[in-house]
């Protein structure tokens, strides 16, 4: 499997994960602000295992959630990328786009900048017919990025996340879709 290892944008470098990312990524995953709309912040072991799972997705699919590094400073900002949706829902099988950015780097437009390139990788290089994104209904920040990217909410495909218990405030999820702009039939 030929993997996509590096994508450069104006201010960011999206790349495969390295050992030295583990500590700063664990800090990001332990930040309650970053993890407000997840079940809970992650322990160091959980964060490390997340990186292992991401790298596994790269090996199997050629793409995954890239580590996002700030150009110049080399600081790890978080992740942005693509992954096959790992649970069953009305919209699966599907490939999702996702992002997670350190809270001290919010408000700079890093998530949309990285995500725009990732969408182009998905549509123009991987030739995916569609990319989806989902988040807890109450996660307005993430929904704003989805809308900024031009993704459209599919109200009928809203769902309860199977990994969260019934009654959990984050269980109810919204689904956003984007169809490929590439017209495969000329």
């Amino acid at each position, binding site marked *: 499997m030929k993997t*996509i290892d*590096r*994508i*450069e*944008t*104006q*201010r960011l470098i999206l790349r495969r994960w390295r050992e030295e990312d583990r500590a700063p990524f664990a800090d990001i995953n332990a930040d309650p602000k970053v993890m407000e709309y997840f079940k809970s912040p992650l322990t160091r072991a959980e964060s490390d295992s997340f990186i292992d799972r991401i790298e596994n997705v790269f090996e199997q699919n050629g793409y995954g959630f890239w580590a996002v590094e700030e*150009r*110049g400073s080399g600081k790890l900002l978080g992740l942005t990328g693509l992954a096959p949706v790992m649970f069953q829902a009305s919209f699966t099988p599907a490939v999702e786009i996702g992002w997670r950015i350190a809270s001290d780097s919010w408000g700079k437009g890093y998530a949309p900048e990285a995500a*725009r*390139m990732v*969408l*182009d*990788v998905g*549509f*123009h*290089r991987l*030739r995916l017919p569609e990319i989806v994104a989902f988040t807890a209904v109450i996660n307005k920040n993430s929904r704003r990025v989805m809308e900024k990217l031009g993704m459209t909410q599919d109200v009928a495909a809203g769902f309860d996340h199977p990994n969260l218990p019934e009654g959990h405030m984050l269980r109810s999820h919204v689904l956003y879709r984007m169809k490929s*702009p*590439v*017209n*495969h*039939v*000329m």
Partner: protein
Amino acid sequence: MAALETARLVLRSIARTDAQAIRKHFPHWEIVKYLTSAVPWPYPDDGAEKYLDTFLPKVAAGIDHIWGIRLKAHLGDTLRDEVIGIVHFHGADPADPEDVPTRGFWLAREHQGKGYMTEAVFAVNSYIFDVLGVPRLVIKNARDNIGSRRVKEKTGAVLIGVEPSAGKYLGDYAEQEVWELTAENFRRARDAAGKTGQGAT
């Protein structure tokens, strides 16, 4: 297609609304003499529209990518915000086994000599190699086209040959240079230049 941004430029996918700017900046002998003789000359009144009619379907099909270059300093200024040049990437047509990826560009005369094209090409090459995953480009220019050669040299292309080019250019140049640009060489040039790809300064 995502817009590309550099220190001084914004590159957006070309649209029909750019026809007027193309008509203004493109049909000048100093520009077209270095371009393929497939460009109609004298340039007809509807030349820009014909160009867009021909290539926008290829853009929609994901085969070609065409960026219009705009100056950031002019964004939002209704009198001056317009396309001042184009970078055209032609991806290999899957239906044509002989087809190879290539890239061409032009810049309005009054904006030449300021490093804009090198800046634009760093950004576009990043997209071609990083996002589209193209392994290698073969790019050509009339031997006399020094400006184009300089852009290629700065962005990692390697001269692999000179060949006769009678009839290939509007300017009827006798020879053309053939350059190879691999993803690896481009990335090396990008790193060495300390350029930021899409944020080249």
